[in-house]
């Protein structure tokens, strides 16, 4: 969306504008750069694989708990986990670090190695991720944009209007839900109420 993509170009990015107690950089969902910048096709495929097999569990975790956004480095460490070497000491340490953030049930999903995975209304064969067409890859990335935007909008609204959110009868989520037709709103409701 052109208006949105040029908006940050016009922003005043002076560090003095940032509030003193701003949290460290973190994302509710993996940043798109993780998938676009991978230094090899093999790593990009591994990132997509790990994201697809864990996506539903992560959304469930977000909807069932007060899980916090995750630093980019932790997202990359998790997405780069190699299922076949989970038992090795190095990957075991990485796995434990990821488990501390994402939760053991979330990590467990990466062990299950299903043959197929459901991504929205698409069923994808995990053995064929290397040959995913560009449209499907685009859909996966769009889905990440959409989820990140929705959760960031709610997080910012809660930060800037805390007094409104203190009211248990506030209608902020209803209003935010109306911005999009996406079913992610179901998750938003359970996450923040």
């Amino acid at each position, binding site marked *: 969306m052109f208006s949105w993509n040029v908006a940050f170009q016009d922003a005043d990015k002076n560090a003095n504008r940032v509030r003193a107690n701003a949290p460290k950089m973190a994302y509710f969902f993996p940043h798109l750069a993780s998938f676009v910048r991978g230094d090899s096709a093999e790593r990009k495929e591994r990132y997509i694989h790990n994201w697809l097999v864990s996506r539903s569990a992560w959304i469930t975790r977000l909807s069932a708990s007060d899980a916090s956004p995750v630093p980019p480095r932790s997202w990359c460490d998790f997405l780069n986990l190699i299922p076949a070497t989970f038992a090795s000491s190095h990957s075991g340490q990485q796995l434990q670090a990821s488990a501390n953030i994402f939760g053991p049930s979330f990590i467990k999903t990466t062990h299950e190695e299903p043959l197929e995975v459901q991504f929205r209304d698409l069923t994808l064969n995990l053995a064929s991720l290397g040959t995913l067409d560009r449209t499907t890859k685009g859909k996966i990335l769009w889905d990440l944009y959409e989820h990140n935007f929705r959760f960031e909008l709610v997080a910012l609204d809660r930060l800037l209007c805390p007094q409104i959110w203190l009211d248990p009868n506030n209608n902020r989520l209803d209003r935010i839900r109306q911005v999009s037709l*996406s079913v992610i709103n179901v998750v938003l409701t359970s996450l923040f109420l």
Partner: protein
Amino acid sequence: MCVERFPIKNEGMASHESQEKRHYIETFRVILSAWPAFPVDLEASLLPSAVATHVWVVEKQLARFYTQSFFNSFGRPPIVPHLIPNPPLLSSVLGVIDFSSALLT
């Protein structure tokens, strides 16, 4: 668990239908109007009679206010909404993705 469908056309604020887009932009405007430093020139409601160019101008101003507010609060650019990928337009979509990733450098 319900199956999330993948949209077959751009919806909400990204809609190409002028009245649908106006409705969602107006809803977004109302949400942001509660935030500190909301621009005075965005205080007027987007009426159903608003022409498409005016809706686009308001959207652009809201996007600028949103990104600035986000940067001020979190010290980084926000993740912003995108059009759904479409095979004939995919190259431009990927261009947007490349642009977005460059924001973090």
